């Protein structure tokens, strides 16, 4: 397993061909993700969010950086888990739609039928939300990659899976099939230490999660998930490899879930030291520091960025709050084609 840098270590920064503009765009998505999530938390506390919320605090780096390695104009598709808000923002999801989803509004992308970031259409939006059954999206993403190849679209499918989700039979069958077919697929395995209360050590006895690649004969590696540049560079290489016929990659990003499984979980089962240790590795702080140190941005730039985000989110929250709840008379519609519900 790759050694993680001790907190505070200075590493020479490899920027993987990113332009300054791109680096700032990444910075924007990182802050947008964190800020949007804070808005969701605030709305949750006001009881305006229906159901639970699942934070990505401390994991925004890998979410954003991995998704940023795709080329959506070419038809690439990313499949987020519940904590990959950052990934769908990069792919083009609008904050107002995310908020409407969380608030169960009638004009949310799923029209109030599904929760949080479980939405998106692979061919139209460049992303597809998961269903709750962990692991199921891996075979589905293999199918998306397969269709892309059949349609000669040369697209890449990027799937996220958790350390917990990687124990499912669905994950295994999908990875194995994709590898046999050498499909253009990249899987980012987020090892954030826990699956709900279950530590990764109880999830598998494999030496690393990347070792699971050996079962599929696909590329596998473990990287620091809180280092935006490393994640971007590694996933980008995997995407390029996938696009040029090199098959599947399984990339374990080591990161940490800084909050409980959901808002109600105070994660008493997580040793305090671990949380402190990982606090010092905050991916956004690290990334912004690097930009500052490279002379690519100043504190003032980030302040301005935050102002812009605040304005955008004010507007988004406002619009989401003013959105109507669904019409109960429509609850029975749109199960099959033909009743015109989804064409309205």
């Amino acid at each position: 397993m790759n050694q993680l840098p001790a907190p505070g270590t200075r590493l020479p920064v490899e920027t993987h061909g990113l332009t300054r503009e791109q680096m700032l765009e990444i910075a924007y998505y990182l802050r947008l993700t964190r800020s949007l999530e804070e808005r969701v938390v605030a709305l949750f506390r006001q009881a305006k969010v229906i159901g639970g919320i699942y934070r990505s605090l401390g994991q925004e780096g890998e979410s954003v950086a991995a998704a940023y390695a795709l080329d959506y104009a070419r038809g690439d598709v990313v499949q987020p888990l519940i904590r990959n808000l950052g990934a769908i923002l990069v792919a083009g999801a609008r904050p107002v739609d995310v908020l409407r989803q969380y608030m169960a509004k009638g004009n949310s992308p799923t029209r109030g039928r599904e929760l949080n970031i479980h939405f998106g259409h692979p061919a139209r939006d460049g992303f597809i939300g998961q269903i709750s059954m962990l692991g199921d999206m891996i075979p589905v993403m293999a199918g998306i990659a397969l269709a892309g190849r059949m349609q000669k679209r040369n697209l890449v499918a990027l799937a996220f899976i958790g350390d917990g989700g990687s124990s499912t039979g669905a994950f295994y069958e999908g990875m194995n099939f994709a590898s046999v077919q050498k499909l253009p697929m990249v899987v980012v395995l987020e090892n954030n230490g826990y699956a709900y209360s279950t530590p990764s050590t109880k999830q598998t006895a494999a030496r690393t999660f990347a070792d699971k690649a050996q079962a599929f004969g696909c590329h596998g590696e473990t990287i620091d998930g809180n280092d935006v540049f490393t994640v971007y560079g590694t996933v980008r290489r995997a995407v390029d490899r996938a696009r040029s016929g090199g098959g599947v990659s399984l990339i374990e990003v080591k990161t940490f879930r800084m909050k409980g499984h959901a808002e109600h979980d105070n994660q008493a089962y997580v040793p305090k030291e671990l949380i402190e240790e990982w606090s010092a590795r905050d991916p956004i702080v690290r990334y912004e520091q690097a930009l500052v140190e490279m002379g690519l941005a100043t504190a003032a730039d980030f302040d301005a960025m935050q102002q812009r985000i605040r304005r955008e989110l004010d507007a988004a929250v406002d619009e989401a709050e003013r959105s109507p709840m669904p019409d109960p008379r429509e609850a029975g519609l749109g199960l099959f084609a033909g009743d015109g519900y989804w064409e309205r």
Partner: protein
Amino acid sequence: MTAETTYLEAIRQAMIEEMDRDERVFLIGEDVGTYGGAFKTSAGLIDRFGPERVIDTPISEIAIIGAASGAALMGMRPIAEMQFIDFITCAYDMLVNFTATNRYLYGRACPIVVRGPAGGGVHGGPFHSLNPEAMFLNRPGLKIVYPATAYDAKGLLKAAVRDDDPVLFIEHKFLYRRIREPLPSEDYIVPIGQAAVRRRGTDLTIVTWGAMVYVAEEAADELKNDGVSVEIVDLRSIIPFDEQAILESVAKTSRVIVLHEAPLTGGAGAEFAARIAEKAFDYLDAPVKRIGALDVPTPYSPPLEAAALPDKNKVIAAARELLAF
């Protein structure tokens, strides 16, 4: 009309014609390519369409249904074969939770066809004799069809491939090579959701589907000797089902048997019987009688299997009971 065509060959032709017609259609499953399928249902397809459109997979039903579904979201029209329909249980989650919910929850079309051999009577034992329809009845979003004739097998499979929603296409393996008929040479479909009245009668209706259509026919033949005129409604589609055809028949005969090959309890027949009992209450001169298999896994040994599955005699006995009511 073409030459006499078996039920199996009708399915094979439907796949070939649909793949010829629409390059988005492809076949995926275990041993469907080089081998042409465990029952040879896809014999020759790989030669005609190549391994890109006739995909041999690992033994991974979850991956088969999942990958087919993902491809369907992207605009493809996959046909996913289960080597035996029993193995759809291994991908049950994927099919009911992912595939079937795409439209209702997300407004996405996920037009896959899942097909494979079902049914008993061939001493296949408990894991190669399943009639799976009832397992999916309470999980909305999947259409279910179960043809009883070569004509319907071809026409329903073509309709399923062209349908914009996922369809479970159930083939009765007992019928594969046992029935044959000439088929139209021109393209045709059998619309999903329409029953066929196999035999017109006035005294009693048998609502059934799949291989049980033939058991109903045998029973009807024998009852005819007693002067009993039986009407047989072959549902063909389980979801959506042709409620009107059922009710029309019952309105005429006032007596009805619902017959299926799956175990009685919780079988799809319960749904039809309950509907009839509610909506045709005023027409009924006798209780709605259901006939299904014994409530056990299908046993392997011929005497046990025969005892477990419905047969002509059980139908005749039930008919007499109803007529005497």
